[in-house]
């Protein structure tokens, strides 16, 4: 994985990205000011292992400190665990929710740091968008999880057999977590198209966008659906 780095930007660019965060429909729900009490930091798992502070991020946004915000939106947001332990804020803030928005804006704007942060995760994005399930049994390969021990190799070697040894009829799959019908997949593809998610993918990974587009087009054409 490449560690995202902060790159210089003009004050106008920083203000533009900041403006997109504030304009998000959820921003007013997530940020109400900050007491600097640090309860969010005390509860935060990422703060224990990284130079990371949900308080600093919330403070930078509340104070409209664009330089500090720029550092956070490029690097720090990617260290958040998104567990929402910080949601015990006495002001009712959701630092985790704010970080979700900041990540989303970083992706939509195609920030190079976002591209770096997402490296290595392409297959997961591909899997969820193209099949409707995020992880599949065939992702359990020893080379992908060397730190999980030899059991992963057992699963990989016996995958087809072990999946057939599952009583629920929907689970006899290896490339998806469960069986999903085509009509449902078509509906999912329409959602990605109609909400601009495919455009977000294009902003950070053109190759992945091209592959996803091809896969989706084929199924949509099979169902006589044309997406403009």
């Amino acid at each position, binding site marked *: 994985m490449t560690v995202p780095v902060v790159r210089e930007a003009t004050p106008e660019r920083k203000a533009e990205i900041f403006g997109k965060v504030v304009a998000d429909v959820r921003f007013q729900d997530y940020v109400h000011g900050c007491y600097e009490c640090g309860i969010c930091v005390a509860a935060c798992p990422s703060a224990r292992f990284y130079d990371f502070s949900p308080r600093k991020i919330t403070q930078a946004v509340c104070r409209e400190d664009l330089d500090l915000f720029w550092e956070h939106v490029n690097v720090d947001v990617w260290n958040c665990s998104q567990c929402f*332990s910080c949601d015990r804020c006495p002001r009712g803030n959701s630092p985790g929710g704010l970080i979700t928005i900041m990540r*989303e804006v970083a992706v939509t704007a195609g920030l190079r740091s976002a591209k770096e942060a997402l490296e290595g995760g392409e297959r997961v994005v591909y899997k969820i968008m193209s099949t409707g399930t995020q992880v599949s049994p065939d992702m*359990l390969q020893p080379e992908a999880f060397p730190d999980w021990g030899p059991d992963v190799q057992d699963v990989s070697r016996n995958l087809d057999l072990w999946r*057939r040894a599952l009583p*629920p009829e*929907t689970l006899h799959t290896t490339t998806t977590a*469960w069986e999903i*019908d085509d009509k449902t997949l078509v509906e999912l593809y329409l959602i990605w198209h109609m*909400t601009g998610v495919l455009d977000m993918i294009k902003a950070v990974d053109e190759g992945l966008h091209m592959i996803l587009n091809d896969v989706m087009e084929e199924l949509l054409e099979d169902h006589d659906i044309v997406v403009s």
Partner: protein
Amino acid sequence: MSSPDPNRGGPSAPSTLTAGTIPLEVVHARSFTRNPDLAPIEDIREEVLKLEAEGEWIVQRVPDDHTEVTTKYGRTKKIPNRHTWHHKSCGQCGHIPGYSTAIFWLNRELGTEYNDPRDQTSCTAWNYYASATSNAPAQAAVAMRNFAAAYETGFYPVIHCGTSYGHYKEVREELVRHPDLRAQVRDILAKMNKPLVMPEEMIHYSEWIHVMRHEIRKRTVLDLSNITCVVHPACHYYKLVAEDAIYDQEIYGGQRTAIMSQLLETLGAKVADYSTWFDCCGFGFRHVLVQRDFTRSFATLRKIERMKEEANPDVTITHDTGCVTTLDKSQFAAKAHGRNVGIPVMSEAQFAALAMGAHPYRVCQLHWHSTDYRPLLEKMGIDWEKAWAEFESDLDRLRSGKTEFLTWDDANAK
């Protein structure tokens, strides 16, 4: 230079920590009395019903056959007893399939009819929290498409994954608060000829197990009085949109969610405490995929080692996809470094199923788990060698082509 903080993880943390790091007796002595009239936030469910009255959407009602429980601020929540539509979890079905299988098995054993749909997608929230390659309208549309699919069957949605459950509650808040978002999602669903439907209550499967605990107890065939469990409550169950989680005065004075702990006590097992119960498991969404050094360190240093040192349990019980995966799989590397780990991890659904006599491999599929669970099975009185031999013979039948799949009848074969 200051000495290392014993409450912080990391390589410098001393390995001889005891329960003294947090004075548990102080925690135990406290009690939290709930009063719904003093709840710090509005009851979003009232807004959901108001929007129905205004013609904004349909509210799918919890079936008449339900059980009422108390939630964080003392409000009442209805949990369906039967007739449920199962919103499956991709991490459970994909990587720990005994988890989903055990949930279905419990439903079958308790005779509560259920629907296991093929027109359900993942909530897609794992990817969303990991990569942010989605947005509020897309996430809401995915949720509402699934809810519409449940509504079309007449079965009530029960959500297997803690993250799906938490995220759908976020979506509910967003849709209630933002009319433009609601209109956008309604338009998207209309293109699929689907109505906009919001469930009356968001239900996590562990809440169904919670209300079924006495029925499960009646059918328990094992003596669990010598089994010590620790519980890891999932962040996205009780921290993310916190007000829907179940609490009970009898469990930690009402200060922690009663989910799992009350079931385990009802089953006759011991529930031991440990100081880092509030910490997350270390899953991190993106971390478990591309930054697993964090996940491994957090799971073992902050969770498993603390559990081991302070409670030395036979098993860690949790109720979410990422938590089972992280706490179980992270132990291999830590063990290789000689750390004080080695606690089997499973969901309360699998544990309850075992207690009711479910097969450890045909139903609970424990061969997909990593940390050694066999000593636990032995202590529970389960002959795992015999069970594995039975499962091997099932596999032989599958290999030979005599049968294509293991069936529910096979799962209960004696």
